[in-house]
């Protein structure tokens, strides 16, 4: 930073005080310290400036000098900002960003990063902070003996575990059977009896609120409040990182025909396109339960959930297909794992029985605990990866080229959808300059031509990327790369730092300067990874289970990338108006279970509150001529009520008790939406038959166009479809809010609200909420959308109800929160 030293004119610089900008204090210790602080404060608050002589000489305005004086001002203002920020940092532990701070760090040196501990120790001593004292040594004889015994037992256990681990060369894979789960941190084995920890559990547990779901312990949200930081990080920051190792991975392996057949069946043909088979792209879409009726129809019923299917790349596609060995990796949400696994297992068994080419036999591997993953979301996320992880530069130039273009761009949205990068990384602990020290230059894509160029080149490059390089992640051997002890890795880092960075060029014999990253030592391990660009706009990095924690820490800590939990990924998707599994999929069994759990929880909480501090739903008066009380079960989305209530909104479960044993008949076209014979809801403890559960429409337009034909085949009375909701005007929809269609006679009154913003809910002109017969759906996710700047949500609407109440072309609806009297105007848009 070159500073133009101005002439020493008294009163001119620094701007505020005459004389020099910096001072050194004199005096004895205490006084000196105070004086030092005061001077430090003064220096921090002073902004240096130049007198005008430097740009105006002899009455001539020198343009170059003008420009440089501006630059000087920029530098000084930036310096001032930095200084005043630094001066506010009272204590060492505040240097660590709030999101990475441990609470006890303010009085316990152990909880600070190692490089700050000495400094903090001194500070705490000086300031007289009550530090947590070290544990006293227990010195009485009995205690000594007891402690020794404990220690011996502990070491014995360690030795056993060491030998146990040494024997296992494969990391927990189940072939045609469920894998045994991996226990992280054997010290805490007892806590993992009935749940599975993620590889990064300990790290997250100290910084986030954990929740037990689907058999895993998953971070739900960080300890800090982060509604806005999440939005900022995902929108224009370096991104958010999630540990998504709870996603179940299965590898389908065997002869090509068999594998293809199975994938064809579960994805109803969609995952078998040419690019998918080549391994260039990963398929992301719904997979269906083929054992549920009806099984033929291609875009409807029985979706289990979304899956990512990635075929192992093959170099040729033509010769000897049937017998060649082929692998497909299938990733599903843990809530749907049971269904998917059962289905795959039975399909594999079936294929084996009909096996035309028994060698290689088909099998499905449960790799839930062998392959973990990290999800990253954000506009600079690729840059973060590029800077913090060392890529093993392939001999294949294509991968390298694609990689450097992608990381330069930074935004995963520029990568084609479904693009897969099979990569190899070096141990990330050996990277010598993580991105904290380098600048993550914000590549501003204002230059449209540059942006287009990058997009085009990425497109071309990734087109044949996968077909060149099958990833070792598919095989057990490829994944089993031992993690070396942290101390050894640190030693390697030191090695790299001290190693000479100059080398002799083999051809020319001259000395060339090598970057430290390009130094490869003989025993460097290369970790296989697969990077997939997901439909949501983020990327998934698949890694061997034992390496996830190391990679994760290297992505979060150096770049100060935000880490998140389930709530954060939910927020990210809902901001972009995308449905989040399982909350927004009430048509799947996972979604229904989730909803039931939430309802039970809400009811429990509600019951525990005193009467004066909660809404009494029975007394809710909507003032629209109906009797008092909330529509449907107030604690959640009452799908049974929605689908079974008649045109007047009446649903009486007790009425159907007599018809309990009858089978459900598919209604004929004239009686769509009217209450049919039903099985009672769960309150009478009869389980729902499969035909009564709501199911999701995945292709609405098709159903609309062929509704008469499909009506006979499908039970459309229980069909739901997902829509995006945007509020018009004020109001924020909450989850389980009621969605009504607007009665035709009221439409003009509601439309008036659009024009006349002065009509407030309190005024008499504000229309009443429609009657319960007009209920068409519920909001599954709702909140204030920071991206849109207004309330938004995802809702599921009943197909039958919408058809009954005005059709699919009139898209306005009314949203009413549970327990509220006021309905608000909104617009829905089918997904």
């Amino acid at each position: 930073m070159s500073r133009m030293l101005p002439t020493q004119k008294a009163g001119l610089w620094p701007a505020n005080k005459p004389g020099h900008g910096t001072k050194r204090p004199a005096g004895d210790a205490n006084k000196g310290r105070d004086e030092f602080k005061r001077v430090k404060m003064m220096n921090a608050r002073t902004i240096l400036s130049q007198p005008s002589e430097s740009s105006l000489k002899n009455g001539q305005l020198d343009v170059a000098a003008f420009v440089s004086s501006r630059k000087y001002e920029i530098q000084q203002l930036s310096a001032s900002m930095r200084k005043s920020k630094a001066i506010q940092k009272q204590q060492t532990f505040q240097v660590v960003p709030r999101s990475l701070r441990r609470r006890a760090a303010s009085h316990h040196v152990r909880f600070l990063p190692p490089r700050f501990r000495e400094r903090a120790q001194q500070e705490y001593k000086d300031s007289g902070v009550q530090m947590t004292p070290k544990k006293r040594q227990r010195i009485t004889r009995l205690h000594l003996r007891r402690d020794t015994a404990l220690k011996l037992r502990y070491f014995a256990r360690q030795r056993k575990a060491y030998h146990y681990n040494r024997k296992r060369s494969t990391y927990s894979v189940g072939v045609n059977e469920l894998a045994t789960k991996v226990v992280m941190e054997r010290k805490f084995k007892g806590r993992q009896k009935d749940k599975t920890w993620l590889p990064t559990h300990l790290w997250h547990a100290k910084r986030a609120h954990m929740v037990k779901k689907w058999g895993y312990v998953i971070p739900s949200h960080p300890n800090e409040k982060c509604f806005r930081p999440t939005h900022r990080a995902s929108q224009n920051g370096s991104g958010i990182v999630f540990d998504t190792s709870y996603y179940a991975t299965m590898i389908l392996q065997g002869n090509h025909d068999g594998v293809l057949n199975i994938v064809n069946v579960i994805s109803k043909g969609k995952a078998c396109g040419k690019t998918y088979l080549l391994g260039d792209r990963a398929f992301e879409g719904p997979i269906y339960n083929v054992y549920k009726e009806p099984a033929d129809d291609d875009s409807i019923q029985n979706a289990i959930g979304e899956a990512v299917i990635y075929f192992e790349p093959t170099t040729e596609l033509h010769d000897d297909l049937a017998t060649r060995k082929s692998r497909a990796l299938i990733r599903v949400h843990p809530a749907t794992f049971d269904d998917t696994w059962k289905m795959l297992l039975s399909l594999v068994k079936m294929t084996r029985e009909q096996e035309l080419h028994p060698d290689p036999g088909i099998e499905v591997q449960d790799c839930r605990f062998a392959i973990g993953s990290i999800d990253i979301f954000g506009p600079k996320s690729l840059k973060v990866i590029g800077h913090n992880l060392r890529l093993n530069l392939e001999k294949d130039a294509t991968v390298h080229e694609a990689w450097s273009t992608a990381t330069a761009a930074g935004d995963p949205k520029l990568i084609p959808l479904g693009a897969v990068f099979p990569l190899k990384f070096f141990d990330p602990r050996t990277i010598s300059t993580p991105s904290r020290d380098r600048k993550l230059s914000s590549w501003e894509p204002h230059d449209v031509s540059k942006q287009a160029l990058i997009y085009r080149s990425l497109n071309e490059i990734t087109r044949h990327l996968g077909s060149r390089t099958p990833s070792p992640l598919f095989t057990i051997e490829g994944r089993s790369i031992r993690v070396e002890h942290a101390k050894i890795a640190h030693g390697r880092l030191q090695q790299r730092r001290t190693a000479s960075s100059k080398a002799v060029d083999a051809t020319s014999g001259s000395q060339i300067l090598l970057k430290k990253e390009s130094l490869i030592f003989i025993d460097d391990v290369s970790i296989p990874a697969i990077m997939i660009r997901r439909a949501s706009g983020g990327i998934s990095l698949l890694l061997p289970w034992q390496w996830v924690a190391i990679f994760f820490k290297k992505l979060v800590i150096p770049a100060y990338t935000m880490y998140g939990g389930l709530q954060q990924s939910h927020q990210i998707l809902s901001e972009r108006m995308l449905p989040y599994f399982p909350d927004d999929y009430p048509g799947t069994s996972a979604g229904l279970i989730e909803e039931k759990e939430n309802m039970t929880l809400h009811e429990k909480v509600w019951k525990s509150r005193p009467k004066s501090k909660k809404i009494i739903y029975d007394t809710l008066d909507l003032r629209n001529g109906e009797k008092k009380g909330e529509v449907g079960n107030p604690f959640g989305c009452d799908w049974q009520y929605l689908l079974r209530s008649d045109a007047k909104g009446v649903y009486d479960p007790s009425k159907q008790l007599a018809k309990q044993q009858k089978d459900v008949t598919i209604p004929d076209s004239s009686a769509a939406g009217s209450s049919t014979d039903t099985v009672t809801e769960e309150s009478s403890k009869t389980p729902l038959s499969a035909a009564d559960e709501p199911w999701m429409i995945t292709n609405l337009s098709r159903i609309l166009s062929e509704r008469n034909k499909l009506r006979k085949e499908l039970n459309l009375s229980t069909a739901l479809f997902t829509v995006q909701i945007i509020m018009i005007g004020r109001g924020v929809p909450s989850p389980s809010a009621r969605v009504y269609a607007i009665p035709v006679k009221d439409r003009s009154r509601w439309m008036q609200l659009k024009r006349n913003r002065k009509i407030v809910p309190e005024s008499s002109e504000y229309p009443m909420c429609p009657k319960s017969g007009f209920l068409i759906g519920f909001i599954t996710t709702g909140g204030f959308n920071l991206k849109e700047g207004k309330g938004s949500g995802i809702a599921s609407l009943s197909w039958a109800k919408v058809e009954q109440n005005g059709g699919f072309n009139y898209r306005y609806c009314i949203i009413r929160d549970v327990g509220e009297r006021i309905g608000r105007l909104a617009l829905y848009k089918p997904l």
Partner: protein
Amino acid sequence: MVRFKSRYILFTVHYPVLDDIDAISPSNSSASNVQPRFQTKKAPPLSDGNILPGGKEGNLGKDMRTLLQRRPAPDGVTLNAVNTAFRDAVNRNFGDLGAGLVRASVSLKYFSQATSTGIIRVSRDHYRIVWAALTFLNEIAGVKVMITVDHISGTMRKCEKVAISKNIKVVRELSGDL
């Protein structure tokens, strides 16, 4: 405890009269193709006095205008001069009451002679008095000035950021072709 809130006013001082500039030396290529047709003390005065030419009469290139609008302060305009000047302005326009309201909390945090940019800090309740006073201020230490307020915000940082972005814009305009 209610927090003490303040406003930081980012302002630029402009000098409508170009008494002391004889020529703008074209020391970089972007300015070289512009002919210096502007008002100087040597040239005959324009019909409406020594004011900054622009529009159809002064055929200035964008570079010229940029420079002339943001020229460094002439000799008399120093930090202390600006300080006294705007306090005087408050006194003159708002009387003793105004001066008293503002006096305790107002301070000139930054002023650069090189760029004629400054930041004043005032309490949030009375910042409009200072703002108005700056608008009425038309002379500092004998030099005719015109003050524009570029940004007002609750934190110093934001003002600094705006100042930086304006500077970057200017630098880009002048050296962007290089």
